[in-house]
């Protein structure tokens, strides 16, 4: 890549190339902010300010990791003079990352932390709006819908009754387009039944309303069953899957939240994995082969069944053996429903490292890409963009960096890890069809922003910004 060559050239004469402003940095040590603001900071040009912010963020992270609160505080002070939620990309990113870091620091004083958050009201309508904006501003969900629907249609070839389970039924657009495709079926539209799972009843009501209206318009037989539940508490009976029916499962950005449950289970059970809060991660360090991994997991599962209910844990709900759900169990339960196809869309980033500094670094890259997406497509003064950045990305960043254990829900992992999990649960990868990929490609091209790219890997599709892979879409069938 010519880019790399240029960078190599840069390295040759690096010290001479560094700008005068960077030399300025060296004159004034960054962490000296004991009250005296540096006026020169204001005059920094955007690029240098960006670099400086990166430097400061990492410095701060190190301080927090080393529990040097004084230094961390000083660094945060410095950053606060440069970062801003309505500045340029790097400034915005820095604003949210420092908020996350500060949140992390504050968690050491749970009383203060809780007090500061005691009057925080999170409005359901805001969350709904932000999800809608995410759908609109980015192509990710749209491409996911295209590929999911195509995979479902192909798997359900010839079926007259289709049952789809949507693990996050919030955006009716996906199923509306499916209804439209199905209504054009040469033999007449097959009967479609969708079971939508969501935490909020209002959302399901809206989705139901929209879909039923659409189905009536198209005159296709349609039924919507809402299931109000969190994924971890999902009662599979409520899904009402009939034996032998043609079932498809669509999971969009949901499964990673289950990984938080794995933490607790693993930590409690296996001394081998005790030191790290992410057992799966550790497996990769050791030259462990698959069967050993299986055994380990199995042992954990069995022992979790026989565990006594009064072992200490931060979450009493997961203590009861009957309630202890983890990813493995969930996937097994999905497998036992015998779906014809399961299409999974997940973030393709490694935000589940055991140490928060790893996560911070990874997140810095991923969210830099996401913020760049916004910068390239939405004007800076847009209130909607601010909302997405703050209420969606900001919250994710905070969760990734500041939270641990069960609280940390945003456990994004790379596709190869998901491959392993699905494989263990008895799923076999179903490569996405040529036609599906073609449709997705065409959509991306017509989207108009060339920086969005689509890669194919192992029969799965990765959606990237520039070269950074952000989301993965893969299809699975239950392997008997």
């Amino acid at each position, binding site marked *: 890549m010519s880019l790399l060559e240029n960078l190599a050239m840069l390295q040759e004469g690096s010290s001479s190339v560094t700008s005068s402003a960077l030399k300025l940095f060296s004159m004034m040590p960054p962490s000296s902010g004991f009250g005296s603001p540096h006026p020169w900071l204001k005059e920094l040009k955007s690029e240098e300010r960006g670099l400086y912010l990166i430097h400061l963020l990492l410095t701060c992270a190190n301080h927090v990791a080393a529990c040097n609160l004084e*230094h961390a505080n000083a660094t945060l002070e410095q950053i606060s003079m440069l970062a801003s939620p309505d500045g340029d990309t790097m400034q915005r990113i820095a604003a949210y990352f420092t908020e996350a870091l500060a949140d992390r620091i504050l968690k050491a004083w749970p009383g203060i932390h809780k007090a500061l958050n005691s009057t925080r009201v999170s409005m359901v309508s805001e969350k709904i709006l932000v999800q809608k904006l995410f759908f609109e501003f980015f192509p990710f969900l749209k491409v996911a819908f295209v590929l999911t629907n195509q995979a479902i249609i192909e798997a359900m070839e010839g079926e007259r009754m289709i049952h789809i389970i949507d693990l996050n039924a919030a955006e009716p657009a996906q199923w509306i387009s499916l209804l439209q495709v199905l209504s054009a079926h040469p033999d007449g539209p097959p009967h479609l039944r969708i079971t939508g799972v969501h935490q909020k009843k209002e959302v399901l009501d809206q989705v139901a309303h*929209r879909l039923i209206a659409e189905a009536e318009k198209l005159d296709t037989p349609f039924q919507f069953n809402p299931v109000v539940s969190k994924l971890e508490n999902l009662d599979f009976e409520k899904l009402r899957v009939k034996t032998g029916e043609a079932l498809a499962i669509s999971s969009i950005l949901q499964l990673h939240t289950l990984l938080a449950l794995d933490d607790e289970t693993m930590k409690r059970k296996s001394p081998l994995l005790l030191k790290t809060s992410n057992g799966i991660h550790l497996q990769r360090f050791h030259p462990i082969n698959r069967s050993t991994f299986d055994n380990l997991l199995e042992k954990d599962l069995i022992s979790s069944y026989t565990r006594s209910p009064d072992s200490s844990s931060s979450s009493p709900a997961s203590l009861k053996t009957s309630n202890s759900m983890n990813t493995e169990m969930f996937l097994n339960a999905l497998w036992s429903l015998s779906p014809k196809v399961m299409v999974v869309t997940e973030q393709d980033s490694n935000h589940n490292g055991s140490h928060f500094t790893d996560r911070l670094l990874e997140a810095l890259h991923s969210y830099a890409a996401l913020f760049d997406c916004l910068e390239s497509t939405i004007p800076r003064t847009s209130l909607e963009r601010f909302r997405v950045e703050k209420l969606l990305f900001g919250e994710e960043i905070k969760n990734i960096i500041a939270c641990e254990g069960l609280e940390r829900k945003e456990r994004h992992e790379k596709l190869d890890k998901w491959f392993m999990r699905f494989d263990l649960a008895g799923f076999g990868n179903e490569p996405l069809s040529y036609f599906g990929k073609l449709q997705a490609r065409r959509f991306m091209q017509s989207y108009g922003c060339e920086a969005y790219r689509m890669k194919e890997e192992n029969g799965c599709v990765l959606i990237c910004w520039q070269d950074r892979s952000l989301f993965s879409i893969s299809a699975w069938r239950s392997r008997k």
Partner: protein
Amino acid sequence: MDNREISNGFLHENTTSSSNENPPILKRKRNLPGNPDPEAEVISLSPKTLMATNRFVCEICLKGFQRDQNLQLHRRGHNLPWKLKQRTSKEIRKRVYVCPEKTCVHNHPSRALGDLTGIKKHFCRKHGEKKWKCEKCSKFYAVQSDWKAHSKTCGTREYKCDCGTIFSRRDSFVTHRAFCDALAEETARINGSTNINNSLLGMGGNNIGNYNIMQNSLVPNIGTHFSSIFKPISCTNHETTNQTSRSGLSLWMSQTSHDTILANNSNLHEIHENWVFGNKFSSNNECQELTSSISLPLVNNNIDNKDSTTSTNNLVSVPSLYSSQHQSQSHHQTTSANMSATALLQKAAQIGTTSTESLFLGSLGLRCNSPSQDHGNKFCGVYGSSSVLTSSDLGSAESYISGELSQMPSIKRRRVQNEEGVWGQTRDFLGVGGANHLPQFINRRMDLI
């Protein structure tokens, strides 16, 4: 008493013979709604009887009464002779009523209603004419008491959404709001008035088109419109041309933004008319026309950018090199003036190895040994500009523990000695030399194993 047709005698037979709905557990379900008492007398009144309001009329003042008893009591006031009839028999015979309308569910004795007033109201409501109208909301009612009850609460408790829809229930209001277009419209109006830099750096190309479409697409698209991506275009061309002519006029009056919204709405429909294939580029051009003709005052952002454009160009020639390469040609938004965050991170990695490595290495540098590394002793590490690097980094990050750890300190020491330059003082100030800074972290890492 006279007008009534008494259909008697088929109690048990009918109720039991109809027993698809009345299972043999009748006795337990007495008098529950929907399950009439099997012992009761089933009465079918004629429609005339059911709808009659005042059957008993006073001869003096012609006032009507529904019941004979009431009429008698009224006659007392006229000093007329009156007589109250007693109950004829001692036994209380339970009566249930069926609806005379044959198509009605309640026609069947098993679905008979237990109350005379009830059956009357039912008949009026379902099979009668709606004569009563609410003045406030023009809703019609057949039964006067329904109408009265409604008009008491009509308009008292209301939630109004900005789009004009009124709700009497709080929950449906809340749900509606979340999806309401009006919300989007309002914010788009605000955006339109404050939003400036569609032509931030005077750049043309698809980017601007993107802007407009993306930004204004909010307007009609939150909620109903967007998800119906298949809607054909209602009116495209003339709206667009209107916009073009008007755009030169005012800076950002709400009209302008509104028109932009309209025009772009149609553009958006164009784009999404075909779910998979879009006409993006054609509509882009139109949008571009629109926006470039709107001249808006600069905001700080803009000014800063303009300045930094020149100065950055003076400073370093390389950043503009890779900032333009870094993104596709159409993305002028992030030029040398405003490097994208991704580009900044990469640059930080490059420059940063000399500058920030002491800090990065502590947390990151352990990943140095990515296999594709050809750049000497600089780590591209986590900042690898290609995805290949990135993914392998992660792999290598995790493999460091297994073997590379011993090598790390020596490599770092070498680097530390290498560079005295830019960040020297920084490191010192932080109180930790490069060497000192690392072990802390390494130790922590080792604990994790």
